[in-house]
């Protein structure tokens, strides 16, 4: 009985697959009816010799997490790095592409799809890919992967990690300088979720603030989500009501709510600021003309990481190691231009940066609240 059931089921599956195949074919003549279409289909055939002229350089595929390609953060930053690489090394349009994931159920099949296409390098930004990357790396041992912001121990996976605490240290310095100028004594940190990686941001930020002014209060909270702008706005509102002058957010899309709250308040005549994360968020904070609530941003140069590893693959120097991107190699930084910081502060921030690079200042990776617990 049950064997028959399975047979019946499988037959149904096949039938439907055939029906679906047919229905797709039925469409085609309908599509071709407008005469214009045919040359469109033929064009690639004509172009092919043209495409072949610049020989195939290498193929790169990016899988985004659920934030999407235009998340103004990690996915987008990584993609920009790949775009820059593609431009510098004349990759043809066919050679670099991305797949957007709709839910975490998509990560594994998306990675496998590119692996089946035998891309030279598959890039996945974000720790959310840890599980799927571990699995896929084992299934496709000859495929080269780059995992950004998390570490998978496999010989075919390059893991790019960032010295976020060093970058956060710099924006902490900037926050303290700005708050001092305004005569304020409280700044705040909003994290996405409370675990090691995000705590590094918190640790660097508070160390930076206290390096300038040890008496300053740093409020800390975690939103519990990376993609909930509404929550971000609620937390921001709470912080500002508690007297925070500047909020540094390390919360991805949740942070967009922080920026929105700051904009609303500034437009109502309040004086508050936000420090952006991952990429230069100045444009996101613009509320009128070119004025922005973004004081500065802690840039995690995922683009540098993607670019570097692409280049490694091209030069056949790819290794499945951990690559650390820090202040010294430009992997974390504040933006080149900070309209809301004056030159004096920028010099001071650069001084601190030089000290960190020289090893004179060691920025802690765990916040004080955690260290005190132990």
């Amino acid at each position, binding site marked *: 009985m049950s064997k028959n059931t399975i047979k019946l089921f499988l037959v149904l599956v096949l039938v*439907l697959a055939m029906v679906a*195949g047919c229905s797709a074919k039925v469409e085609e003549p309908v*599509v071709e009816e407008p005469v214009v279409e045919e040359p469109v289909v033929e064009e690639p055939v004509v172009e092919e010799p043209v495409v072949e002229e610049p020989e195939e350089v290498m193929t790169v595929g990016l899988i985004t997490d659920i934030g999407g390609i235009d998340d103004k953060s990690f996915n987008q930053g990584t993609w920009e790095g790949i775009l820059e690489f593609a431009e510098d090394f004349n990759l043809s349009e066919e050679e670099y592409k991305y*797949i957007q994931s*709709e839910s*975490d159920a998509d990560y594994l099949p998306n990675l*496998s799809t*590119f692996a089946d296409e035998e891309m030279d390098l598959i890039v996945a930004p974000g720790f959310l890919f840890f599980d799927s990357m571990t699995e896929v790396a084992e299934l496709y041992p000859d495929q080269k992967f780059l995992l950004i912001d998390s570490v998978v121990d496999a010989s075919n996976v390059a893991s790019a990690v960032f010295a976020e605490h060093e970058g956060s240290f710099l924006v902490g310095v900037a926050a303290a300088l700005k708050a001092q100028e305004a005569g304020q004594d409280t700044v705040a940190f909003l994290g996405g979720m*409370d675990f090691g990686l995000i705590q590094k941001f918190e640790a660097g930020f508070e160390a930076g603030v206290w390096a300038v002014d040890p008496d300053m209060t740093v409020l800390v909270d975690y939103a519990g989500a990376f*993609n909930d702008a509404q929550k971000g706005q609620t937390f921001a509102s709470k912080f500002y009501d508690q007297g925070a002058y500047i909020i540094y957010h390390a919360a991805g899309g949740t942070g967009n709510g922080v920026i929105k709250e700051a904009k609303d308040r500034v437009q109502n005549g309040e004086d508050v600021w936000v420090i952006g994360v991952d990429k230069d968020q100045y444009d996101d904070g613009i509320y009128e003309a070119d004025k922005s609530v973004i004081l500065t941003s802690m840039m995690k140069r995922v683009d540098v990481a993607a670019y570097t590893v692409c280049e490694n693959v091209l030069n056949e120097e790819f290794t499945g190691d951990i690559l650390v991107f820090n202040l010294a190699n430009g992997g974390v930084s504040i933006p080149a231009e900070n309209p809301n910081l004056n030159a004096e502060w920028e010099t001071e921030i650069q001084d601190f940066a030089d000290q960190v690079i020289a090893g004179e200042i060691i920025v802690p990776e765990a916040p004080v609240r955690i260290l005190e617990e132990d």
Partner: protein
Amino acid sequence: MSKIKKLLLDETKYKITVPIIAILLSFLIGTIVMLLTGINPLGAFKALARTMTGINFDKLFTDKMFNARYVGEFLTTALPITLTGLSVAFAFRTGLFNIGAEGQLLVGAMAATVTSIMLDLPAIIHLPIVILSAALAGALWGFVPGILKAKYNVHEVVVTIMMNYTALHMTNYLLKKLPGSSLIKTVKSNPSGTLQSDFIASITNNSRLHWGIIVVGLSILVFWYIIEKTSFGFELRSVGFNPDASKYAGMKVTRNVMFSMMIAGAFAGLAGAMLSIGTFDYGRILVGFENYGFDGIAVALLGGNVAIGVLLSGLLFGGLKSAQPLMQANGVPLEIAKIISSLIVLFVAMKYGFEMWLRTYAKKQEEEGK
């Protein structure tokens, strides 16, 4: 031609012709959208065909022609939405609108994870317990709106929507409390209490397809049997057509409403097990809904609330969903597949319009014939 015409005009076949018209129209409009935005629609169709058959039509007769992984992933995607489709369809046959499949799915997924992780039994006992617990949890989540509807006439739409949120936060809370859970997931489920199978993985080129395919097959049979072959099913349908007449005929309307919601909940609970001990091998702490329940509404709607229809439309929606990586690799954006699936729902919802149109067309033909 005349055969097709005849089929189109046959009023008894509207149940089949209308959804097919809706699907064809949606693909047509999807194609037009792609042409207007400068995307090659062939890329989309090739991706869809390759996802559902595993055959790469660009590389026919090479060793890369067939990849069973795509078929496996396609079926894996279709399993939960077929079950939530059954859930919505079952309630609908009793005249109830089950918006709560999402929540029932979540508690089902949680129950499966909990029993899988916490119990340690031989697989032959463990796995059935795990699957049954998912169904029971879903049934319990369906029981609440069911009894509120039956006893106090509280509208099930309101209750089920509320219970979706309750389920989301409650399951997140409880999953985090399990031993070894992190902030985003629980530990791996017990090998004796999982649907995952190395055997299926090995024959489908390491896809995530799992034994849940049998659960879904049986569920479809159970659905069909209850609705079409039992007097209980007859009563349910009768209540769906006209509760007052059914009551007058001596049927226990309140009891039937309650059971209907519970069975619907059980199907959705099983869908949860497909995810938490099938597609994934651990419980996930979710940030928000993943819309399997809402996909289920679309599946049930297109499938005309009958078992075989739900299966076919579950496969179609599963195909559209799982074709997305290939579509995007072929340069077709994520949104196109969404546009097509939404259009299908829109057109099926317009079925009375189509029926009216077909009837006028039939009349015209008749007059011309005379």
